[in-house]
C-alpha cells in the first residue's frame, strides 16, 4: 500500500518524461580564462537566437557567460575567410607551459606580427575611466630601449610594415619625436602615433616636429556629446580640443585615423555622426571603431549586453541611412576573421561608393590577408602614380606617349587628380578586442597585433591585456625607473633589461 509521499513521488516520476532540446547550438569548444582568478579553463561557443555566446565554468569561481558576436550566421560564414598565416623569421619564445602562457611569439603562434605596439610610457595627461592600458605614473622608456625593441622587431619580421607608439599618452614623452625617427631610420614603412590629441591642440612646437617626421596619427575620438566624453573620458568639454587638434593636423597634411570606443548605452547613437564627420574632415582617412572591452580600467557593464562588431555595423547602417550596409564590410583574414572587419569607400560630393560593391572582394582578399593596410589612401596614391610613371619618363614607349598626349578616351589622370582620388578614400575598420569574459585562445593564436617589450618578447594584444602579462611587465618596467634616472643623471647610456614572465609560481594551480 503506498503512502501519500510515495504516491506523490510516483506522480512526479510519471510526469512528462519526454526530453526537450536545449535552446542553443553547441558550435565549438575553445579555451578561455576565468575572469576572476585567471585560471585557464575550457569554454563553449554557443549559438542562440542568431547570436554567439561564450559559456564557461571555473571550478573555483563558478559559471560565466558573455556575448561574443551579435550575428551567428555571419560568424559561421566567416570561416571561409580563414586563410593561411605567415611565418615570422624568428620566435622570441618557446612552447613550454602551453598557450597562453608562452608568449611571445612562441612557435605555436599562427601568424606573424603585422603591427608592433610600443608603449613608451605609462603616464598620461588624462585619467579616463576607460583605459585598457591602466595609464598612470610609473615608467618612461629610454631611447636605448626603444631602439633595441625596434631592432628586435626587424629581426623577427625582416621588413616590418607598421609600428605604433602608444602609452600612457606617448605625445607627452620627451623623446617621442626621436622614437619616431628611430623607427623610420630602421626601414619600418609606417610609423603611427596613438594620441588623445591634447598636445597637438596646444603645442605649436610639437606640431612643427610632427610636420617634420610625419607619422600617421591614430587619434582617439569617441563622438560629439559632452555626456559621451564625461562618461568615457572623465572630461565633458573635451570636444573643442579634439576638433582643434584635427584641424591643426589637416593644416600640416597629416593622415589621421580616428578611433572611437563605443560603449553600449553611452555613445552608440553617435556612430552615424562620426562617420559623416570622417567623410567631411580633410585630415581623416579612416575610422577604427572599437567596441569597449573590460580590461584594465573600464566601465561596469553586462557581458551579455556588450557592443560587438555586428552591433556597430547595424548602427552604421541605420544612422547613415544605408550609405554603408552590412555586406560592405569584409572580415579581415589577417587575424582570426571574426576579430576585425573592414570596408574601403570612395567618397565624392557626399556620394559614398564602398569598394566591395564595385569590385569582387575575392580578387583582392589576399591584399589584406597577412598584412595591415596602414593607410589605404597612401597605397592608392602610390599605385596610381606608379601606373602612370612610364608616361612621365623621358624615353618611354612611343605609343604610350601618344596615349598620354593625344588620346582623350584614355584620360590619364594628372598629379592633381591622383591626389584627389587618394584623399577621397575612406577606411572604416571594426576591431573587437577580447577581455577576460570573451577571451578565446583560438582567436589569440592568430593574433597579428603585438605589444613589443624590452628583451624582444612580442605579446599578442589580447593576451597582454587579459592573461596577466601587462601586470608583470608593468611591475618590472616601473622597477627599472631608478636606474633609468641614474643613467640620465650621470650622462651615460641606459642598459636595457629584458622583461620576463612567470606563470608557474603565480598560476592558481
Amino acid at each position, binding site marked *: 500500500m503506498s503512502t501519500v509521499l510515495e504516491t506523490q513521488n510516483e506522480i512526479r516520476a510519471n510526469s512528462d518524461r519526454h526530453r526537450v532540446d536545449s535552446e542553443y547550438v553547441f558550435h565549438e569548444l575553445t579555451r578561455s580564462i576565468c575572469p576572476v582568478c585567471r585560471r585557464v579553463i575550457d569554454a563553449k561557443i554557443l549559438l542562440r537566437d542568431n547570436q554567439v555566446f561564450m559559456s564557461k565554468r571555473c571550478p573555483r569561481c563558478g559559471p560565466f557567460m558573455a556575448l561574443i558576436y551579435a550575428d551567428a550566421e555571419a560568424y559561421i560564414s566567416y570561416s571561409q575567410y580563414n586563410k593561411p598565416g605567415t611565418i615570422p623569421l624568428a620566435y622570441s619564445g618557446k612552447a613550454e607551459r602551453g598557450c597562453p602562457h608562452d608568449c611571445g611569439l612562441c612557435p605555436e603562434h599562427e601568424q606573424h606580427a603585422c603591427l608592433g605596439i610600443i608603449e613608451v610610457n605609462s603616464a598620461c595627461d588624462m585619467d579616463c575611466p576607460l583605459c585598457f592600458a591602466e595609464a598612470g605614473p610609473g615608467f618612461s622608456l629610454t631611447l636605448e630601449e626603444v631602439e633595441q625593441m625596434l631592432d628586435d622587431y626587424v629581426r623577427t619580421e625582416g621588413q616590418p610594415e607598421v609600428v605604433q607608439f602608444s602609452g600612457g599618452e606617448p605625445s607627452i614623452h620627451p623623446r617621442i619625436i626621436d622614437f619616431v625617427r628611430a623607427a623610420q631610420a630602421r626601414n619600418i614603412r609606417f610609423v603611427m602615433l596613438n594620441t588623445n590629441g591634447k598636445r597637438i591642440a596646444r603645442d605649436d612646437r610639437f606640431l612643427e616636429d610632427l610636420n617634420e617626421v610625419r607619422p600617421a596619427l591614430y587619434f582617439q575620438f569617441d563622438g560629439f556629446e559632452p555626456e559621451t566624453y564625461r562618461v568615457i573620458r572623465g572630461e565633458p568639454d573635451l570636444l573643442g580640443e579634439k576638433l582643434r587638434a584635427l584641424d591643426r593636423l589637416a593644416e600640416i597634411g597629416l593622415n589621421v585615423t580616428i578611433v572611437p570606443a563605443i560603449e553600449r548605452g553611452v555613445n552608440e547613437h553617435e556612430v552615424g555622426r562620426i562617420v559623416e564627420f570622417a567623410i567631411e574632415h580633410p585630415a581623416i582617412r579612416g575610422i577604427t571603431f572599437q567596441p569597449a572591452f573590460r580590461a584594465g580600467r573600464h566601465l561596469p557593464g553586462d557581458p551579455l549586453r556588450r557592443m560587438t562588431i555586428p552591433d556597430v555595423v547595424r548602427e552604421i547602417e541605420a544612422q547613415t541611412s544605408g550609405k554603408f550596409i552590412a555586406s560592405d564590410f569584409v572580415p579581415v583574414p589577417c587575424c582570426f576573421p571574426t576579430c576585425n572587419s573592414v570596408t574601403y569607400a*570612395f567618397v565624392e560630393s557626399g556620394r559614398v*561608393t564602398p*569598394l566591395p*560593391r*564595385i*569590385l*569582387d572582394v575575392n*580578387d*583582392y582578399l589576399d*591584399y589584406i590577408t597577412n598584412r595591415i593596410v596602414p593607410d589605404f589612401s597612401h*597605397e*592608392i596614391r*602610390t*599605385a*596610381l602614380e*606608379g*601606373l*602612370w*610613371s*612610364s608616361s612621365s*619618363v*623621358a*624615353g*618611354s*614607349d612611343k*605609343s*604610350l606617349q*601618344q*596615349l598620354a598626349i*593625344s*588620346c*582623350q*578616351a*584614355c*584620360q*590619364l*589622370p594628372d598629379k592633381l*587628380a591622383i591626389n584627389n*582620388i587618394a584623399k577621397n578614400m575612406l577606411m572604416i575598420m571594426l576591431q573587437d578586442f577580447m577581455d577576460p569574459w570573451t577571451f578565446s585562445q583560438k582567436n589569440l593564436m592568430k593574433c597579428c597585433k603585438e605589444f613589443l617589450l624590452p628583451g624582444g618578447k612580442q605579446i599578442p594584444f589580447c593576451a597582454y591585456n587579459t592573461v596577466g602579462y601587462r601586470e608583470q611587465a608593468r611591475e618590472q618596467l616601473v622597477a627599472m625607473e631608478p636606474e633609468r634616472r641614474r643613467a640620465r643623471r650621470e650622462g651615460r647610456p641606459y642598459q636595457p633589461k629584458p622583461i620576463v614572465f612567470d606563470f608557474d609560481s603565480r598560476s592558481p594551480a
Partner: protein
Amino acid sequence: MGRGQTPAPSAVKQCCAAVYASDAARLLLGDSFHPGGTRLTERLGQMLNLTPRTRVLDVAAGTGTSAVRLAERFGSEVVGVDYSRESIEAANGQVSAKKLGGKVTFKCADAEKLPFPDACFDAVICECAFCTFPDKQAAAREFNRVLRPGGQVGLSDLTRQGSLPPELESLLSWIACIADAQPVSEYAALLSGAAFTVSVVERHDGALVEFINQIRTRLLAAEVMARLQKLSLPGFDLDVAKTLARHALAAIKEGKLGYAIVVAAKEP
C-alpha cells in the same frame, strides 16, 4: 552590382586601338623592371665590397638610379652604360641635378662590345638586364675583359626553371626584358664560361613577390578608377591582368620563377 564591361574596341579612337597588351604590361610594370629596388642594389654593392677607391661599371644602367645610389652609398666612381640613348640622356640629367662632381658618368654602349680598354674596372654590376642580351656569352666575356685581375662581377636577374602556364609564357614574350630569363645555374655557367669563378648565388624571390604585389596594387587602383568611371582602359583586360599576376605568384611559389644575385670573380 555595377560590374560593367570595358568599352568595346570599336568605340575608341584609332590611337587607342593601337594599345597592345605589351603597352598595357609596360603601363603596369612602370618604367623600370627592378625587383628589390635600391635595397638590392645596395646589397650587390656590399657583396662586391665597393669602396671610394673602387671603379665600377654599371651595365644596362637605364636612367642611372642604381649608379647614383652606389656612388652616394659607397663613394665609388661609377661609369654607367646603356644601349638606349634616351636613357643615357635622362641619366645624365639625373647626375647633373645631384651634383656628384664627376663621380658618375654615362655612355651609350653595347654590353656585347664595351668601349673600354682591358682591365680598367674593379667591379661590374648588371641588374635585371643580363637576360635581355641576345649573346649572353659574349657579354660575359666582355665583363671579364674590362675587369682587372681579381675584380668581381655582380648580376641580379630574373630566373626561370621549368614550364610556365601558357598565358604567362605569352605575356613574358611581350615583355622584352624578361623574355629570356634563365635558370640561375645557367647564369652561373655563362659566367664560368667566360673564365669567372662563381663565389655566391643568393636567392631573392621575396623581392620578386613584393614587386608583383606592387603590380597587383596598381591593378586594384586601376580597377577602382575604371569602375568609378574615372578612367577607361580600352583594349586592356583587367581580368586577364589579375589572372596573370596570380599565375606569376604561383609560379614563384612553385620555384619556377624567381630572382637571384650571382657574384663571380676574375682570376687574380
